[in-house]
């Protein structure tokens, strides 16, 4: 053999080397993926970690489980944790000073409540309990009477009206209970991602019941996220995310009951006291999970006409909503990120964020 290696070598040797390279290329598999699943906050949480030593990845995921269970206790509105005690104190009358750990999340949820113009309001706890949507294990079978809903609404006060961030105090509001349900899961996902990053994890998804934040990539490709069809079986759309993005979807199919042909779902309009109407699904792509979580609730409540204005207030530009008529409305920025998978051409409207 001369010094020209593969080029000048015998024909058979060239074939042999090619064959080996092809076999290696064809058989090459991805680096290891670790999946860890647990139940917390009334939902199934899955941590997916890619290209990280498996034992370290599992240890990090177990820490995420511990974090979720701790936050579940702290933020349960009706248990004996800090938020439960706050609600008990509110019900007993008088203003309540909130401990610093809880004040942070109340303050952030208050900012979002203000930015959403009241479409998202954590002070909706008494209403949620009245409807029976406070218990993750149970589903009600009929709505409360209109009179009890009216009474609950009259006693309610929006969180921005009773929360003083300078003193971390909730003003006297005996009819109010704070429920972080539309925000807590997102905040927990954000904290879980920070925890994974402290463990040195660079590529991961924390998926809490389908709502997720993804960091990094899955090897040489982005993470692939499916968005479920709100009415049909299967997947409505595919979204590819990489870097650091949150994808949250809320809909009227998650927790609901039907009575006399009408569907009653768990996303309540704080202004009417009844489940929101007009939209059956909202998908939001945002930088952080807490904002995405609260935004889904706020946009569902805002309805098919008003949601772009509320999205603008929340600083969002990537939103897709499905109306109860089946029409899909989508922002230009989201349109560039989403691949719709319906076989029949969907009725699509591009909506600009003002």
């Amino acid at each position: 053999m001369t010094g020209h290696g593969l080029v000048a070598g015998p024909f058979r040797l060239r074939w042999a080397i090619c064959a080996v390279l092809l076999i290696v290329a064809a058989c090459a598999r991805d680096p290891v993926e670790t999946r860890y699943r647990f139940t917390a906050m009334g939902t199934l949480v899955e941590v997916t970690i890619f290209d990280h030593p498996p034992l370290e990845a599992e240890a990090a995921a177990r820490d995420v489980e511990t974090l979720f269970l701790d936050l579940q206790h702290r933020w349960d509105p009706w248990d004996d944790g800090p938020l439960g005690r706050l609600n008990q104190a509110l019900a007993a009358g008088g203003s309540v000073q909130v401990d610093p750990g809880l004040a942070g999340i109340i303050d952030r949820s208050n900012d979002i409540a203000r930015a959403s113009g009241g479409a998202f309001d954590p002070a909706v706890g008494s209403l949620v309990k009245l409807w029976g949507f406070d218990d993750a294990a149970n589903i009600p079978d009929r709505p409360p009477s209109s009179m009890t809903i009216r009474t609950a609404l009259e006693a309610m006060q929006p969180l921005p009206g009773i929360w003083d961030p300078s003193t971390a105090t909730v003003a006297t509001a005996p009819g109010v209970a704070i429920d972080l349900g539309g925000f807590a899961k997102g905040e927990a996902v954000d904290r879980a991602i920070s925890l994974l990053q402290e463990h040195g994890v660079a590529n991961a998804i924390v998926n809490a019941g389908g709502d997720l934040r993804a960091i990094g990539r899955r090897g040489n490709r982005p993470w692939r996220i499916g968005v479920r069809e709100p009415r049909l079986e299967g997947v409505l759309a595919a979204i590819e995310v990489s870097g650091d993005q949150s994808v949250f979807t809320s809909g009227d199919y998650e927790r609901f009951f039907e009575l006399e042909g009408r569907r009653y779902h768990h996303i309540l309009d704080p202004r009417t006291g009844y489940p929101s109407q007009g939209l059956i699904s909202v998908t939001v792509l945002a930088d952080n999970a807490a904002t995405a979580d609260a935004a889904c609730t706020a946009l569902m409540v805002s309805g098919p006409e008003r949601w772009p204005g509320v999205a603008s207030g929340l600083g969002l530009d990537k939103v897709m909503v499905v109306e109860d008529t089946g029409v899909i409305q989508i922002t230009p920025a989201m349109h560039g990120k989403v691949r719709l998978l319906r076989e029949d051409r969907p009725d699509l409207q591009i909506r600009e964020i003002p």
Partner: protein
Amino acid sequence: MRILRAGDVLILLAGTALVGASYAAFWSPRVEGDKAIISVGHDTVAHASLLEDRKIPIDGLLGRSLLQIEDGRIRFTESPCPGRYCIHTGWISRTGQVAACLPNGVVVEVEGGAREFDAINL
């Protein structure tokens, strides 16, 4: 001397096509799974083929859930949970899809095909 001759180019092209074809044949998207992994809590309690229609009782934390396999799909048909969200979930068949009865601690995941999505927004 030329680095590559026409024959070498042909070999490389044929090789590339072969890699593509083998990749498509072996690794690519058959998104329908062919088995279900059933767990209670952190313990896997059953591996079930989706190729054989049948009903599978699973004892969970509250009582017995009943799973049905039919036409390559699986679903909850009975469960002792009050909310019945597991039954609302309906059929699942794509690799990576999950149906769960959280109060009863029973989780079903489809496996065996190509995973189309890393996660599904529910």
